[in-house]
């Protein structure tokens, strides 16, 4: 592409560069459809009550934060199934270490982030150095963590001090702190992916690992770092959940299906499961679709089991809308 000095084309280029991921149209359709259904059959709260709108955002925080990390590993053509148990591990460890005492909070936070870093590092090392498929590696590490948590804790362990509930419940003006944190994580994720060398390299590795290796990229380091970041986001989600629930239990991660749903949200958001293409803003829309669906069904008083069915349908249909035109066979 040649650069021209015409300011008109420059503006055009800038406008072109902020292309909205197509998933946002899908999100709008679901939001409007849900709102209209709610007007017709429910209380009309979705459009009428700003609290419900805010609730949609708060619902997205837990999944949204971890989905940023998941987006990064998927862009690198990897996958992380261990996030659900990293979330559980964070929740129980944090509340166990805190024991309701504000003085223990820094120690708990350092502990859980250190654990997250180690887990991400181990995942990355097994995938790159032992050449184990990412799916199997992270399935394996998630089983390992699951066994360790379930044999150590059987129920709610410890509690978080009142001051720590700030993260889950406090407001900064009209906006919940947790939503601000989600947005910050999104912005950092966007910045890392689009504005740093590491991000550019991650796209390259995800697009074609062998070519990137031959072009001199340290593919192993890049993938390991992506996995460390992913585990860190899982830890942050775990901290958010424990501050909402006021204590941690071993089942909080897997019960929320954070492993599969973070992957689903990422792919619904337009990130290629095979790696090399995608971004965090699409993922945000994917996460929002889930919360809009949940809120709509909640407002309509729909059977919770049918809600699960619709989630499944939406995931498949949304992804199908991108893939249907591809000429390559899917696997």
């Amino acid at each position, binding site marked *: 592409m040649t650069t021209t000095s015409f300011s008109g084309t420059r503006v055009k280029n800038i406008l072109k560069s902020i292309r909205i991921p197509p998933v946002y149209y899908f999100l709008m359709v679901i939001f409007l459809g849900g709102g209209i259904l709610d007007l017709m059959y429910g209380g009309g709260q979705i459009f009428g009550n700003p609290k419900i709108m805010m609730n949609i955002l708060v619902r997205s925080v837990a999944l949204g934060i971890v989905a940023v990390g998941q987006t990064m590993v998927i862009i690198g053509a990897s996958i992380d199934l261990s996030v659900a148990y990293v979330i559980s591990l964070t929740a129980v460890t944090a509340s166990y270490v805190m024991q309701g005492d504000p003085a223990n909070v820094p120690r708990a936070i350092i502990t859980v982030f250190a654990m997250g870093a180690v887990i991400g590092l181990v995942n990355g090392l097994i995938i790159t150095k032992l050449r184990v498929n990412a799916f199997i590696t992270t399935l394996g590490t998630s089983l390992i963590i699951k066994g360790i948590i379930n*044999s150590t804790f059987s129920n709610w362990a410890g509690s978080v001090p009142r001051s720590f509930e700030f993260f889950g419940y406090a407001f900064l003006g009209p906006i919940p702190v947790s939503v601000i944190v989600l947005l910050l994580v999104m912005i950092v994720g966007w910045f890392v992916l689009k504005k740093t060398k590491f991000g550019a390299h991650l796209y390259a590795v995800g697009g074609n690992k062998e070519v990137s290796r031959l072009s001199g990229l340290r593919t192993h380091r890049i993938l390991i770092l992506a996995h460390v970041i992913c585990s860190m986001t899982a830890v942050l989600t775990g901290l958010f959940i424990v501050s909402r629930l006021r204590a941690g239990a071993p089942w909080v991660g897997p019960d929320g299906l954070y492993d599969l749903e973070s992957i*689903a949200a990422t792919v619904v958001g337009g990130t290629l499961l*095979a790696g090399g293409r995608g971004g965090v803003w699409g993922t945000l829309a994917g996460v929002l679709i889930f919360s809009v669906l949940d809120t709509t069904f909640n407002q309509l008083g729909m059977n919770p089991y049918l809600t*699960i069915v619709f989630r*499944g349908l939406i995931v498949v249909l949304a992804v199908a809308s991108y893939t249907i035109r591809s000429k390559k*066979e899917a696997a």
Partner: protein
Amino acid sequence: MTTTTTTGKNGFTSTLNTTWQIIKQIPPVFPIFIILFIIVSYLSPTYSSTVGILAFLRRTAPLGIFAVGQMFVLASGGFDLSIGSIVTLVCLVSSLLLNNDPANAYSSIGIMLLIGAGIGLTNGLVVSFLKVPSFIATLGMMLIVRGMALYWVGGAPKGYFTDNWRMWGRGYIENVPIFGRFPIGMIVLIVVGLITWYIFHRTNYGKQVLAVGDNVRAAQLSGVKVRLVRTGAFVISAVLAVIGGIMFGGYGGVNVTIGEGLEMSAIAACVVGGVLLGGGKGSVISVIFGAYTLEILFSMLNLMGLPKPYKDTIQGAIIIAAVAYVALSQRKRR
């Protein structure tokens, strides 16, 4: 690969070489299984008695069947995450269809098999024609099937399984020579194993599954109907999930969470049985032995007095180690 024995003064060494060649071709899962089995029968006398061994065979038969189904999909290069929720569907809906009347057993089994085939067909069509990656397609199907099952029965199992329905999973055939009594589940596994072995190793279809998993483009160019082959693999996987689910439910009883995580166990069994994720490799017998190896390992840990949750930890370590072993030994060969 053929190895010919040359006669002459090197006869002895070449026979040794031939034997070594044959030994090298045995998948590692068989010796590992035998070693573990010997350890377990030392630890507990139950595992050295016919009754105990048959009970063990019966208990693991469903996992063997799930694993074979999963293998077809894995070998064709995909994933099937819907197995666990198909099992939940089978158990919950069968309890409803049976309506506590033994006369309904066969019709309900027939209906479940049809539903299973429908689910597999849908998975296959979504992957082949909508081009949705199978991970996402079957993940969506997992949610859909689980939600439908719970919605259909209203969230809790209705009634109980009749004895003629449960017999597939827990029944025995009495007065069998040598064994005394032989588990029906084991017969189902053997029949399923033989049929799938024939399909996978002796028909064109089996070769095409491997070809598609190995290199889609190459398979396509050599005239394989990729979409048909993939869809077939998903149908086989779903139908086997129904068959295994009937046995699993018959053995364990009605339960809302009965199928949870079974797809991952099936993948683990496949991996231990030497299946490559991404496709192109698989063997029915190794995979069945993979399932038995996992289960005998759990029995061993149990007998050694390890707390139950550690079962997951060990399973996780085992599947990573199994795949790392294969990956590293392949690198050496290259």
